[in-house]
């Protein structure tokens, strides 16, 4: 079955989630991947959105983090302070699933701005839930499209901690999560080196070359000695994903 690189990314990101995990879900690509996981191999994955919806099972993908669909299909909905205090900071989240505008070799994320803070070239939306998702969740998965614009040597601003400018920013900090454990793009899967925390490509998507990944990365990226090929999406995964996206499209187009 044919598939696009975007589908490859979503299916691979979905597979990162295990059944039964509690996942704090970012909007956009993470939300797509997390719901695909729920509809395929991980029916009991627990999806939590920062709008307060606990254990939600939306039939279509939400456009915003607080679509009505999320509340209607949730086990219960709590206030936003409770969500961040009891559920995230309280240590109830296994994995935070995030997107980002920029990422660097130490997995630091920038969603604040391009350029200088006082005179930005491009002002981005800001941190939202990410700064504390990244430090309070047990671990963090990141998914985004691979390009030199997004994979930069140094992020313009650390909105959200990966491992800091030197890879050591989590060392010795009490009550902090493990941080990013994998990054999934449309080209490959990366994991931080267990020692230096620098991102290492561990798996190339079928048909993708080392050169392609290097060309789309703003620093000289490392590749694992044992470089795997990411498993292809199954027909079922693609079917479920396409159905989900088609349902979503119809729903959002139909609203007036």
């Amino acid at each position, binding site marked *: 079955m044919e598939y696009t690189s975007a589908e490859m990314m979503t299916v691979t990101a979905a597979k990162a989630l295990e059944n039964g995990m509690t996942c704090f879900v970012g909007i956009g690509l993470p939300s797509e991947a997390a719901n695909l996981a729920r509809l395929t191999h991980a029916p009991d994955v627990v999806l939590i959105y920062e709008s*307060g919806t606990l254990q939600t099972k939306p039939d279509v993908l939400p456009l915003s*983090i607080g679509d*009505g669909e999320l509340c209607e299909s949730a086990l219960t909905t709590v206030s936003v302070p409770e969500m961040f205090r009891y559920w995230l900071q309280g240590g109830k989240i296994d994995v935070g699933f995030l997107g980002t505008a920029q990422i660097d070799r130490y997995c630091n994320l920038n969603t604040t701005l391009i350029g200088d803070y006082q005179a930005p070239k491009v002002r981005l939306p800001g941190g939202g*839930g990410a700064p504390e998702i990244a*430090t309070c969740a047990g671990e963090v998965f990141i998914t985004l499209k691979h390009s030199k614009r997004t994979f930069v040597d140094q992020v313009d601003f650390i909105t959200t*901690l990966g491992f800091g400018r030197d890879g050591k920013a989590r060392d010795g900090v009490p009550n902090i999560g493990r941080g990013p454990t994998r990054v999934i793009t449309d080209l490959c899967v990366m994991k931080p080196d267990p020692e230096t925390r620098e991102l290492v490509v561990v798996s190339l998507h079928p048909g993708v070359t080392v050169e392609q990944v290097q060309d789309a990365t703003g620093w000289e990226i490392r590749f694992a000695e044992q470089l795997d090929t990411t498993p292809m999406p199954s027909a079922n995964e693609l079917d479920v994903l396409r159905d989900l996206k088609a349902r979503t499209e119809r729903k959002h187009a139909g609203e007036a």
Partner: protein
Amino acid sequence: MAEFLSLHDAVARYVEDGATVAMEGFTHLIPFAAGHEVIRQRKRDLTLIRMTPDLVYDQLIGAGCAKKLIFSWGGNPGVGSLHRLRDAVEKGWPHKVEIFEHSHAAMACAFEAGAAGLPLAVLRGYVGSELPSVNDQIKFIECPFTGERLAAVPSVRPDVSLVHAQKADRKGNVLVEGIIGVQKEAILAAGKSIVTVEEIVDDLEAGPNACVIPGWAIDAIAVAEKGAYPSYAHGYYPRNNRFYKEWDTIARDRDTFQTWLDENVFNAGGQAQ
């Protein structure tokens, strides 16, 4: 004790130029009608607080109402940028807006602390983030029991909060249901509060632990049917996701925005577009 007022009168009475104003609603129950009334009354120099400034804040900023913005995520959810916010921050149009930027966790805790009457909120936050280097309202304290370093932010205590809710009873008690965000906190933390509601009912028909805010904790209630539209009201009408997408085009250009504002706010009585 909640007084039933027209939205015009409530805003005229309680929203003063230069005030610190929170209009809350976490993607749900966003008080568009109230925000438009603030624009129509040409309020100026407001310090606007909101975790997720979205279209209504884009409109307020583009209309020149804002002097400062305290926020944690400023975008058009699922669509992209807020072009009026960006134009103000990047190019100073219609004038420069000063920004104080937080994370959601910190803002949520700051609303909670404001409702709790405290001057500060304490959280395990901002670890490794560079936000503290650009926002001097973020400090750190040491736990006197464990020595752990924890973040502290000032609580949110707006002069006035405006929120939208599903319904009020005839005594002014208000039910908020569904994604309740920080609405209760916004009301309780504020000096004055205005709640717009879809309707007034005889009986709220609320469960024993529902989010009900007593009338005596609210200053003014104004009926604003579809007052959250194009956002949504759980149990009343869905979010107009299409408008959220269209806004990207409307807001991208100053003239298109101005035209939209004239047609849909200034010349549109006391009703949301």
